[in-house]
């Protein structure tokens, strides 16, 4: 393993220390337990948005803490979900009385820890709702798996909901918006190489020179299929087709019911993209793939969307939800409406994402 680290066990903490030093105007870091929060939080009356997950996906989530986006982020160990005490303390720190929206990716560890955190926060009189992101079309059948993973749409939901929270949406409106963004977003990724988790020290999986992993998640876990290397046009075609040809996906997710004061199973179904849809196209680097290659992906993606009568009206290209130094990319397409476009365009100022300010 060759990495710029001191000791593997200090990796997450020292990374947070560097981040705090670099962006002291925007964020503060609490270390015991670990969470990153806005310097101007709590903002009275505003709903606070908190996300979190394993470290190793930078800039997600801590890089998105700031004006117009997240109020706090809880980083776990590398690829390991954070713990309920982190989420609870973060909630206490940033709650301005408007309640908390937890944005949770559909991974078993994240779900269980955020559910425990929700129960703890509720016990302390803080209103919390959590919305699950599950947008990875590589996962076909929800009946026999954990359901679809939460990947690229998470980043878009954080931006859009962050703007909405700044504009005064209440907790229920934000939860509904976040759910809608999730239902409108679809993603799929591929890996050209494995990453190396610092604490383990060796690559998580072996991939031959001529092999790629299709349908990967964001934790260096193997994908759904291993195949031989193809041209970027062919790879983009596979990813894009999988996304736009994805039919309705139905699943049952657990959400907190404020009236009943308990968890309820909510049936959700999303509808496929149709001709004439306005889209946001997001081409994401898994960490080790340069921007030049992402533009090759975008080039082909834009061609396919045009052929299909899908209008790309916004885009985002770069490393936003990564897997350490893994080579590869993911594509996310999000169906837009006027409200979501307005929120997307709203100003944002965070360590890793800023425009309009």
């Amino acid at each position: 393993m060759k990495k710029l680290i001191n000791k593997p066990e200090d990796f997450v903490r020292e990374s947070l220390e560097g981040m705090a030093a670099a962006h002291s105007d925007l964020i503060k870091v609490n270390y015991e337990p670990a969470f990153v929060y806005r310097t101007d939080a709590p903002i009275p009356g505003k709903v606070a948005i908190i996300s979190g997950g394993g470290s190793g996906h930078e800039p997600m989530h801590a890089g998105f803490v700031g004006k117009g986006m997240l109020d706090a982020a809880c980083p776990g160990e590398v690829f390991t979900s954070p713990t309920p005490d982190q989420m609870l303390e973060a909630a206490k720190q940033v709650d301005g009385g408007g309640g908390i929206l937890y944005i949770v990716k559909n991974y078993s560890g994240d779900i269980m820890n955020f559910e425990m955190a929700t129960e703890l926060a509720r016990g302390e009189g803080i209103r919390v709702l959590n919305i699950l992101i599950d947008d990875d079309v590589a996962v076909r059948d929800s009946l026999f798996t954990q359901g679809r993973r939460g990947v690229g749409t998470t980043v878009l939901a954080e931006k859009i909901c962050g703007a909405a929270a700044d504009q005064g949406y209440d907790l229920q409106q934000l939860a509904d918006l976040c759910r809608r963004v999730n239902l409108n977003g679809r993603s799929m990724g591929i890996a050209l190489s494995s990453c190396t988790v610092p604490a383990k020290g060796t690559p998580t999986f072996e991939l031959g020179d001529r092999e790629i992993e299709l349908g990967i998640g964001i934790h260096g876990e193997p994908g759904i299929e291993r195949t031989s290397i193809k041209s970027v046009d062919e790879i983009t075609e596979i990813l894009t087709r999988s996304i736009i040809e994805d039919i309705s996906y139905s699943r049952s997710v657990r959400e907190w019911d404020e009236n009943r004061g308990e968890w309820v199973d909510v049936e959700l179904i999303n509808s496929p993209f149709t001709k004439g849809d306005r889209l946001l196209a997001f081409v994401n680097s898994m960490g080790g793939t340069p921007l030049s290659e992402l533009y090759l992906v975008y080039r082909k993606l834009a061609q396919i969307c045009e052929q299909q009568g899908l209008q790309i009206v916004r885009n985002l290209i770069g490393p936003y939800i990564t897997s350490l130094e893994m080579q590869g990319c993911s594509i996310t397409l999000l169906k837009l409406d006027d409200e979501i476009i307005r929120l997307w365009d709203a100003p944002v100022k965070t360590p890793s994402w800023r425009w309009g300010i």
Partner: protein
Amino acid sequence: MVNQAQILQWLQSFAAEIEQNKEYLTQLDAAIGDADHGINMERGFKKVSSQLPSVADKDISSILKAVSMTLISSVGGASGPLYGTWFLRASTAVAGKQELTEQDVLELLQAGLDGILGRGKAQLGDKTMVDVLSPAVVAFRQAINEGKKTVEALQQSVAAAEQGLQETIPMLAKKGRASYLGERSIGHQDPGGTSAYLMLQSLLAVLLLDAEGNSVRENTHE
């Protein structure tokens, strides 16, 4: 009877087992998950191990509760809430006890399993720790119904757990990150099931050691 000192020994011994098997658990997890099970468990149990002296004079339930809180706040991932819930429920099942009868041990094991079933929503056959813990509880119950003492019942329980662990190998994972592999999860032993097996096995090892120690002393008296 299982006494408070044995519970403490068990937790130390389980922590040592986790440390020794850290690489092994991580290798199992790399095959079908994301290669952190050993690392996460070791982080949690290292902390448990260092905190045990401070709760050494407490009753069994309080010790188990302290373990639960430490795991929930230090392990993360899926293992943190699952093991944390197992120990929390086990703690509630033996509230106020200084010693555990066969029935108490059964209730502890059953409560822990029920907690995990509720938290993780996994069923038998999903290729998770449930496939190890569930047959272990069934075997323990059957053994004490037949009038067996704790050590003997636990021997049967651990044998059933080991069998359950072997049976996770051909299973298709339906929970956790392994589930995303689909068919490719077949042929690999479940890492969570492996650590759950170590947990039961280390309890048995402590009780067996004490049983041997006692019998040696008894023999000397004769």
